[in-house]
């Protein structure tokens, strides 16, 4: 039990690195394609260079940051509704 998680953590870190590299490779390909292909979106702003990429990146960061901030307001302990013992 004590041995396995560390082994697993190392495994997962390795997978994480491979995954990150793969994503970066696709991102680079997409950026190159953006130069050569004529991509046009629904809204005019969408046609600007790498708009979906930039929008996606910042939307994601924004969602997570707002979520963290929201935690302070609407996160409560598990027994908040006083329904007795939790299920687990």
């Amino acid at each position, binding site marked *: *039990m004590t041995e*396995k*998680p560390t082994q*697993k*953590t190392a495994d*997962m870190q390795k*997978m*994480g690195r491979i*995954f*990150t590299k793969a*994503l*970066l490779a*696709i*991102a680079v390909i*997409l950026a190159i*394609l*953006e130069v050569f*292909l*004529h*991509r*046009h*979106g*629904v*809204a005019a*702003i*969408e046609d600007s260079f*790498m*708009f*979906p*990429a*930039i*929008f*996606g*990146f*910042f*939307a*994601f*960061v924004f*969602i*997570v*940051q*707002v*979520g*963290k901030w*929201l*935690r302070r307001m*609407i*996160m*409560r*302990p*598990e027994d*908040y*509704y006083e*329904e*007795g*013992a*939790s*299920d*687990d």
Partner: protein
Amino acid sequence: MTSLPPGLLMIIVAALLPFVPHMARQIVMLAAIALSAYGLVLGAGTHLVWDVLGFELVLYRADALSFPFAVIFHIAAALNVIYSWHDKHWSQHCAALSYAGAAIAALHAGDLITLFIWWEATAVTSVFLILAAGTITARRAAMRYLIFQVLSGVLLLAGAAFYAANTGSIAFTKMTLGDTASWLIFIAFGIKAAFPLLNGWLQDAYPEATVTGTVALSAFTTKLAIYALARGFAGTEYLIWIGAAMTALPVFFAVIENDLRRVLAFSLNNQLGFMVVAVGIGSELALNGAVAHAFVHIIYKALLFMSMGAVLHQVGTIKASALGGLYRQMPFTMVCCIIGAMSISAFPLFSGFVAKSLTMSALGDTGIVWAYLVLLFASAGVLEHSGIKIPYFAFFAHPSGHQTGEAPIGMRVAMGIAALLCVGIGVFPAPLYAILPYAVDYHPYDVSHVTGQLQLLIFAMLAFIFLIRMKWYPPEIPSVVLNSDWFYRWLAPRVGRPLLGAVMGVWAVFLRMLVWYRDMGWAVLDRVMHAPISGPTVPGRAVMVQALLLSLLLVLGYLLLG
């Protein structure tokens, strides 16, 4: 087959299930679903019209809008039967099959009263899937769920009554939002479609149901509401606003929710938002988008709930804070979960992409840019909670040390079929497009769509890796997240109980006063009886009362005559 509304057969078979041995039960259920589905092939048109009290009850109306919903409801019912193969007791099978049957029958209701009956039937049958979890928490959530579902039904019935009074007809057709009738019906649909602030029941109850129950629940009720909105209120502009809010708001809740099935319930709400926006646009392309989205959504949402159900079944918890590292113990479940996650995130070649593109294009045609950008934003949100958070925290993140294996074979087969459907529809969308309500000439795989969507998704994933590396991603914390159910679960009791206490206090004082006056009255009477100023004593209260009444009559007589 046209003598029986689709779905009714499933309900009849469900009623017989307790008497079927468990060896044959799943086969019988699948046969019932297949037979009911066979009816769809033959049954286009209107059948079974009953004349009741001058109103026409249309029990069986099948057309281009009901058909795709009916097809996917049958598929979902069958998947659920396979997924719950390991469950030897009849009770949940009975509830799930009759629930699916009621939902299918509701799709074919041609009038508001028939719709109401099946609308309530879905509530009454499905609540058992929550109750079956057997915990106190589940029982309370089930009761709250039932109250909301029945409330929706009552509003629908009230709306139908107003509608009948206004128009002299109860036919369920397109309505214009404006009078009392249409608003009541609109809100009734809105409760089941989990509109903002009416959505609390969904995130409250679905994650409390059993492993198999949540899978069934995720398919029918809300998509029945989408169907009803598409039939009754297509092109209602409010729906664009409501739908946009539905896509964006649950995203933030899902980020911080710890219960992974509840994360999926928030995600379900977000997906409904896309469909509601599409119904609000109301163009042929948009309605096709709503129907296609509902179709593929049922499959990938069921797949995600199935994979999380498998984890819950094997590990005993579904809290993100207690999970992680299961990729080696449950590799098949992990692969299925990731296929579901990629489908819901609308990766090209997965089913979500071919459906969501329709809605996004239709929204683009309207020129409502703000709504388009909100939906684009929500797409990044879908990727965050369903695309990444669900598989990441269940199967990777940090090792949790759970010793377990793969789920029972039935669960794996169901997940496998759902995963194949997700990829199959994504790669060959033509059969799906062929059954949409309007003729489609749409090609999702053009350069702009594919590269645009890939950019959005890949860079959003890079944002995730960036946040994890910077340790800015919020950790999983055992907790509850407040939602709109807070108003009736926390606020209402705390405001209501003192208020009720005060009212009851005043009432008690009033009652005590009445008692005191009564006692006083008798006391005076007794005194007069036993110690009169003159004349004989009166032997009892009855005599005294009679004497008083007679005196009163005498006085009245004098007054009236004189």
